[in-house]
């Protein structure tokens, strides 16, 4: 079947999608967006986390056909979509396609690097999307809020402390940016 959807701001059309196929498979294997990781295929690990119509979901549990006409944001689109400051400060052309943003990082991505929150890196894309989703809803989360927001994302290197540090760092920098921006 054919599926039409918007991915990271850009309209996409894919053909020959099998009816039982997951959105994750479509993203990775048909659209060349391998940022969302395929691990458990049962919603346990969170490595395939994306936003579907602005709601955080496991893309392995969304049937491709359910994404018809919907808006999907993957980790590849985070730099263009996450923090208002970065979205405003660059790309005056208004073209928000993910390709034009290569090299640019969302604040949460920079925070993960600066805090040393990446080990093998496999869980990182899902954690970035989940952490960014938290900070969009709550700019100053408590530690308990962070833990709950990331409870559906597994890191088998068990680098959780640095990951928590990264989310705190991103939140603190967001606070600073907002203060300085008036």
């Amino acid at each position: 079947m054919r599926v039409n959807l918007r991915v990271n701001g850009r309209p996409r059309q894919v053909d020959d999608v099998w009816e039982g196929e997951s959105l994750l498979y479509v993203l990775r294997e048909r659209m060349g967006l391998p940022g969302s990781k395929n691990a458990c295929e049962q919603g346990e690990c969170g490595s395939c986390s994306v936003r579907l119509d602005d709601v955080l979901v496991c893309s392995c549990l969304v049937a491709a056909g359910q994404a018809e006409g919907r808006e999907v944001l993957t980790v590849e689109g985070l730099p263009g979509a996450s923090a208002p400051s970065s979205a405003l400060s660059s790309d005056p052309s208004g073209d928000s396609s993910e390709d034009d943003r290569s090299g640019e990082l969302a604040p949460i991505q920079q925070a993960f690097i600066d805090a040393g929150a990446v080990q093998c890196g496999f869980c990182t894309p899902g954690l970035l999307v989940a952490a960014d989703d938290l900070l969009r809803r709550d700019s100053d989360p408590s530690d308990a809020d962070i833990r709950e927001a990331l409870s559906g994302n597994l890191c088998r290197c068990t680098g959780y402390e640095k990951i928590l540090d990264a989310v705190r760092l991103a939140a603190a920098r967001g606070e600073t940016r907002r203060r300085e921006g008036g």
Partner: protein
Amino acid sequence: MDFLRPASWEEALAAKAAHPAAVPIAGGTDVMVEINFDLRRPDHLLDLGRVAELREWEVGERTVRLGASVPYTQIMAELRHDLPGLALASHTVASPQIRNRGSVGGNLGTASPAGDAHPALLAAGCEVEVESRARGSRRVPIDAFFTGVKRNALAPDELIRAVHIDRADGPQQFSKVGTRNAMVIAVCAFSLALHPESRTVRTGIGSAAPTPIRARAAEEFLNAALEEGGFWDTGEAVPPSIGARFAGLASGACNPIDDVRGSAAYRRHAIGVLARRTLTWCWESYRESERRAPCA
């Protein structure tokens, strides 16, 4: 495989009538796991994601009409006051990602003995609104809904439209045993609801019998003990002996199995512990509310 995409409830009923073996999919948190693991290859997937009314709810005078696809996240955020037991249970479901997609309608459709919503629905009291194109709508009392392991009272051409849950008239609790606070299929779960208006209690047990069940003997014992002791009026603490007997009867209601998550003996024991704890929590809340607003 065909992917059916009804745009309305009427179209969904027509599709189910035409293809009674079609598997309804809403949040996909159960169905997609089975498809991803090649455990299920239905001829038709029936996507309910476009039927907007299934994501709506309405708070009535005595009941909440909860659309089948309202995600757990929304129940936690919006219905904590009216459906406290179900809101607590919703919060224990898996993770934020899953709670954003999973729903009570899906839980009832799967009808797993481990479904987190079920004990809370049994304790609160509710009716499941189901419908077919041929025979129209009917309401199934929750006590008659679960018919076997992963089996429910739905006919092949029926779909779950909504759940009519009694609004809480007293404290409700839900407690679940698992290895951590997230991503846990219940080893076992227990829900208790006090109904001060009728001076009764209701219970729900999960993962400790072939279906979700009520602990009826425990309810009857506690109803009688609270009445005879005048506890509803006095708001006095319930003595430990009553809690212990209630716990023992709750354990006795179980008919569990040994599996990878826990042994039958452990489940039976744990249900007793959860029953005693939830009684303590509920009764403390009831006493507080009585102290704040004594009966006129």
